[in-house]
């Protein structure tokens, strides 16, 4: 996952499209951030903060997947990162079969990378909107997976999900700003 620090920024697409920059990150930044998000998501609610605030309301692995997908703008890398984070999340959760969040985050990583290559996602508001949207996209994929593949009941929408998506959007603002510090090209 380490990026090539010496590589210059790449301009993608033709002249008719916006000239969007592909960001590079410090070595170990993607792995470290992903690992930290997973640890916080899995162990903090159990061992540190007894409650479901982080576990349910703040989807840190989703936000990390989304951020790196939008920033690196490489669909292949984005979907692979989403798959790894999602499967790790499933493995750490203990309750989910491996692949449930993996499928959802694979799609999230792919779509975020695709969107990141076409839109300017540096503005805080657009980041919050994207976090809100992708939260529900992930939920939608999970619900479909549960219902169609696993024959389990799962709601498409609830107040709690709405609150969680808003929380994710709010958290995305400072989190993405924090992760921006890990970019190598801003040094």
């Amino acid at each position, binding site marked *: 996952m380490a990026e090539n620090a010496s590589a210059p920024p790449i301009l993608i697409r033709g002249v008719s499209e916006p000239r969007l920059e592909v960001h590079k990150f410090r070595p170990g930044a993607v792995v470290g951030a992903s690992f930290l998000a997973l640890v916080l998501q899995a162990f903090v609610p159990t061992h540190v903060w007894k409650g479901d605030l982080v576990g349910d309301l703040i989807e840190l692995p989703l936000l990390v997947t989304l951020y790196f997908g939008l920033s690196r703008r490489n669909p292949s890398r984005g*979907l692979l990162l989403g*798959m790894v984070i999602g499967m790790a999340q499933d493995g750490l959760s203990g309750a989910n079969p491996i692949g449930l969040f993996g499928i959802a985050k694979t799609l999230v990583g792919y779509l975020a990378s695709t969107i990141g290559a076409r839109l300017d996602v540096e503005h805080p508001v657009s980041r919050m909107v994207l976090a809100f949207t992708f939260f529900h996209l992930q939920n939608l994929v999970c619900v479909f997976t549960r219902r169609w593949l696993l024959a389990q009941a799962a709601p498409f929408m609830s107040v709690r999900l709405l609150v969680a998506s808003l929380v994710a959007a709010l958290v995305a603002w400072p989190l993405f700003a924090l992760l921006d510090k890990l970019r190598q090209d801003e040094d």
Partner: protein
Amino acid sequence: MFEIATRRRPYVLLAVSLVFQILLLAVQVRRPDGARLIRVWAVELLTPAERAGSWAMDMVRGGWSGYISLFRANRENQRLREQVGELTMRNSALESRAAEAERLGALLQFREAHADAPLLAARVIGGDAGAGRAIYIDRGERDGVQPNMGVITPQGVVGKILEVYSGTSQVLLLTDKNSGAGALLADSRAQGAARGSGGPLLQLDYVSNDQEVAAGERVFTSGMDKIFPKDLPLGTVVETRPGNPFKQIQVRPAARLDQLEEVLILLSRKQWDWEPKPAESAETAPGARTPAAGTAKTPAPAGGEAKVKP
């Protein structure tokens, strides 16, 4: 080619990742009945193909076995048809033999009941090819048959011998227009002459209009014709009406003239009792009469024929 593969790499990678994870899910997850999801999917995926294959095999097997069965059934059908034909013929032959045995039995019984009567059994061997009502029998001159001898069956009078040849004879039936016999009405005892009309019935002539004759009255031979002895059954009155100068009486012959196969020839006009008399039975009646002396009785030859000569 390589460029296309590179350009499509994200899609391929996405598809592979998703399929891999879906399969991973299927391996882990169990259905409520305990079956792994991957097994359920595999079964659901393969079952239609297996079902289609099984259906196709069943069709092929069914068609083949149906064809073979049909072929066998056809052969068996042919064999059974032949068997049915054979059995039908055999059945007809047996029925014919049974009927013949019954007739011969009746003839023999009649012959035994009239052991003293000079009777000669004969078989009908042909009919008259012309319009006349005559039959041919297998007895002739060498058997002692002579013209104008009477011919009867156990049911009644048949006719008389018309022509005699060495081994066969021609019998003129009662119903022929040229045939006739002396008749006697059973109840009124009025006498007349029964003659053939060319049809199935006889015409009884010379009965006065004063005589009361009713349908159903029996008619016997009167013995006046010098052919038949007296009191042989001739027929039954079926219709009577006044006529000029005599009554017109229709008589149905007692013998079934259209179903003749065996007959008895009266070798003489010797009088004998048509109806056997139980009181005269040798075993029961005291002083019972034995068959008339001088009447020879020969055992019935093959075919149930009994030959009796005076």
